[in-house]
């Protein structure tokens, strides 16, 4: 499917749905389903704006295959020790930045609130998604997802995807 032939409103709806589903799977702790929103040969990174602005490559989380996403989740479930917590994503309206025949690039602001077992919620991570979304095997999927975050003082640690 040539994405550039689709009406803008329809593209925006598909983009918005996918980004909302991504947030919901994480917030609802359905992490095992999360990698399925990505193509096999994907990029996923969560990187401090400080590095992005200076052209430095280090990301807090950097995955370049769906397998690495799965490994992150297995590690979270089986290996990692972290405070009990929930995320709550608040997602802004997406803006379509670019439409190519095979991909659409969208920019979306996000806030991730975190609640630990103290019961208090706080802004854990504020940033911007830069998503490259493709239509593959009958579905819209992320080929690349970057969460570029302003909150570069990470509270305690980061185990869950943003």
């Amino acid at each position, binding site marked *: 499917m040539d994405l550039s032939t689709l009406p803008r409103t329809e593209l925006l709806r598909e983009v918005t749905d996918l980004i909302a589903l991504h947030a919901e799977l994480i917030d609802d702790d359905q992490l095992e389903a999360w990698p399925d929103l990505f193509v096999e040969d994907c990029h996923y990174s*969560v*990187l*401090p704006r*400080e*590095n992005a602005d*200076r052209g*430095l*490559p*280090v*990301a*807090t*989380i*950097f*995955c*370049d*295959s769906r*397998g*690495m996403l*799965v*490994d*992150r989740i*297995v*590690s979270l479930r*089986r*290996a*990692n*020790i*972290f*405070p009990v917590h929930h995320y709550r994503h608040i997602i802004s309206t997406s803006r379509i930045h670019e439409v190519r025949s095979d991909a659409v690039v969208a920019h979306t602001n996000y806030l991730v609130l975190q609640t630990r077992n103290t019961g208090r919620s706080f802004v854990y991570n504020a940033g911007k998604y830069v998503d490259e979304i493709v239509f593959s095997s009958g579905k819209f999927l992320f080929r690349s997802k970057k969460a570029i975050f302003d909150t*570069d*003082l*990470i*509270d*305690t*640690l*980061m*185990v869950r995807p943003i």
Partner: protein
Amino acid sequence: MLNVQDTAVGKVSTDTEEPIGCRIPYSVFTDDAFYKAEQEHLFRGPTWNFVALEAEVPNPGDFKSTFIGDTPVVVTRDKDQSLHVVVNRCAHRGATVCRARQGNVPHLECVYHQWAYELNGDLMGVPFRRGIKGKGGMPADFDLKQHGLVKLRVEALNGLVFATFSQEVEPLTDYLGPLITKHVERIMCRPIKILGNQRQFIHGNWKLYAENTRDPYHASLLHLFHNTFGLYRSTQTGECLMDESKRHSFLYSKAGSNDAARDSEVYQDSRSFDTSFSLQDPSLLAGRSEFPDGITLVILALYPNLILQQISNTLAVRQIVTHGPDSFELVWTQFGYADDDAEMDAIRLKQSNLIGPAGMISMEDGEAVEIVQQAVSSDRKARSYIAMGGGGADDADHLVTEGAIIGFWQNYREMVGIEERVS
């Protein structure tokens, strides 16, 4: 009665009821009195504190704002390439002079009243020094030379920049000692390039992290990623060594020495031994052997505020910045070598998933510090018990030791004092 000081000095055997080992009153982690004392006697005392990598300030006019303990400082590179470290506080009325994290400037200038300083901290001038139309102005005896920024002593070792407030402390390499110097030089063996920063805020006392990084005992027990995916086990060969003063520690292991039969015997069916999982994408662990000595993990804990690490192909400094008795910031600066090829760049970036605040083998340290802080905060008379490895500040040719933690506390006791400050 056997006191804490005695037990920490060595494996003292007595007929008292106190067990051999080191006991630290938890109020060192919670009391403001300790926090204030250590800012003065330790961070601003006779210690060399890490402030920057030279590669962060490569060009004349480059600066980096950072902290020693909680004292703000600026690292600058002067026109003649020399390095300066000055307190980031205007000599006039105390404003922060350098407000950006880094940048390039011809001189430092306070925005409040535009007092301007040379890159070495000398005061260049003051607006309205002679008033206006002959009215106002500074007193006639105002002397620019008396009002510069506070200057620190600076030394660099293979690209690591340290500063001290002390005029008495020995030169840097004497302070580090030959063992630590050698291993700093091993990692900092050629020009580096900065790959990026990560910052982590930990709700705990910084000394819990100083303990954590001198503690090989916890590695295979807390960090289960190693075990889950078969990366590291305590049966690997490794050592935990200290400099002569026992303030710094050098902890290393070699990954090539796994022995499956021995592992099963040692761990039997403990929760931390499970090899049934394998990585879907093992490229995470694909790396290169960079060092001829075969060492795959190095944690150099440099008293008081630096950890220099090599974990597989990840290279990083971790700088401790204190915020108060119950919180600190950990600033990770990851680097590679300037001559890394594209494949090596990619390896380092991918393995970066192992370290930092989201590091699959390091994130737990943040939680470990916090669960101690949460439990000790309400009971100031209680004490820890540190004795693994024999209870003394001893080097170990194995990784089931807490000797380097005891070494840390011996130095802290000498510099700041412990028992006399417990309220």
